[in-house]
């Protein structure tokens, strides 16, 4: 499978990465090189094989459903580029 220029733009938008017109052709070549490389996986017989979902066989641990953390909003927003009263600020999303 290979991607065309329009698909490159669509993927970039899905990934929320702005790409200029000049960036599209080299990206298209690079993505197609990678896709050509992974193409060989199509020749492997995977019938009846379960996909890996856990690297080491282990049961997920659970803990008591209790509040164990929190109460430091100022530290949470400390690294944010733009905040007000311990809230993150973003461009207006609702008209």
């Amino acid at each position, binding site marked *: *499978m290979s*991607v065309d220029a329009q*698909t*490159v733009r669509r*993927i*970039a*938008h*899905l*990934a*929320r*990465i*702005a*790409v200029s017109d000049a960036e599209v052709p080299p*990206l298209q*070549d*690079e*993505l197609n*090189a*990678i*896709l050509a*490389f*992974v*193409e*060989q*996986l*199509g020749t*492997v017989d*995977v019938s009846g*094989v*379960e*996909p*890996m*979902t856990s*690297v*080491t066989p*282990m049961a*997920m*641990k659970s*803990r008591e459903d209790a509040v164990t953390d929190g109460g430091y909003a100022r*530290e949470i*927003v*400390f*690294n*944010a*580029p*733009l905040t007000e009263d311990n809230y*993150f600020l*973003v*461009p*207006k*999303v609702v008209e």
Partner: protein
Amino acid sequence: MSTNDLTELTLAEARDGLRGKAFSAREIAQAHIDAVAQARALNAYLVETPERALAMAEVADAKIAKGEARPLEGLPLGIKDLFCTHDVPTTAGSRILEGFRPHYESTVSHNLWRDGAVMLGKLNLDEFAMGSSNETSAYGPVVSPWRRRDSEAPLVPGGSSGGSAAAVAARLCLGATATDTGGSIRQPAAFTGTVGIKPTYGRCSRWGIVAFASSLDQAGPITRTVRDAAIMLASMAGHDPKDTTSVDLPVPDFEAAAGRGVRGLTIGLPKEYRVDGMPAEIERLWQQGAEWLRAAGARVVEVSLPHTRYALPAYYIVAPAEASSNLARYDGVRYGLRVPAKDIVGMYEQTRAAGFGREVKRRVMIGTYVLSAGYYDAYYVRAQKIRTLIKRDFETVYANGVDAILTPATPSAAFGIGEKQNADPVEMYLNDVFTVTVNMAGLPGIAVPAGLDAQGLPLGLQLIGRPFDEETLFAAGQVIEDAAGRVALPRAWWR
């Protein structure tokens, strides 16, 4: 002892010297601070923390005076800049995290400070640990302390833990933390004549380590000897309730295991690792390694891991898929870079376009594509099925009585900075062809220096173990180190 000599010690020697009061923690910290300041040409450290190092050394000296030395008391270490460190900038080698100062400490680095280690600073790496040469760092490549015989051309230290490997080889710390998603500890260790171990998935907590591919990422040490790696891993490892994939198993005495020998063990040589175009000197080194283990009392047998060739392509689906999801958090809202735009989607897109480098964009886009509607089953689910087959190959070999597997660590010695710039991305990815299977199967793997190539550059061998059997890797690694002799590290031309 002159202060220069203090940076030449192994971690084990420094520990014993501190306890025997042959020198102070302050002296060995200062010796390293000076060495780091004189090595800026290597670009190994992104942040130097000399004041913190001296303050920690002062505490260490007080502990030693009272006879209360902790396991790593007073030992100066470097930290890969993928580990979040409290109030010390953490960039992951990316512009998008420029200026980020975490208000928390990663569990692994916390464990090192708990055990008395001293922090020298943060080490350069490929951006978000995506690379095999340290050339994708937004803060410039790391220059290897190694050079080819009769040449001054700068070489790569490998990646992504290139700063860690270069700093350890150049005596800019006694040991360094590193992380390995597809070979990022073992490949740079092999390129720089150092020892690097990626423990079993779950052995170290991933909490507070900037995530790349969560089902593959593991932390481990890079050091100058096998024993040093055992000492450092013992402090880094352990169960952490904050990472549900960290295992609740006791941490064995790794240092004791390093002296255990290999008598009676069975070592497998996988025939599928004899790849086309592999240099004859790598093949020779591999046979030499097998001979050393045999001479030390191990039985060496040929084994088969039939799905080996599919590990790298499957990795280049699984790792980018997980990365595209993990890196969604860099959105200009909560930390790091923000590029203003007229609406929120524009702000996301401009921020990520300006903040991510080429390799990161490429991988996030591949990941986005293979997870997108219509392609998920064909790519991602198929790759995860192949991962099951890769793991099954190893399980079969181990069930047949093999204790560890010996392979080359890399298909070549280090290459020059910029040498692979115009190659397509896949050529760079091939660096990890011998290491990536280990991450796909969640197994432990260690790279140990085993010799030099015709140009005088180090070459390493890899040992792959059973899940949670790092002890056998330290035992067999020590046998190789003893037989090969310690690598003579390059003299300090960078000063």
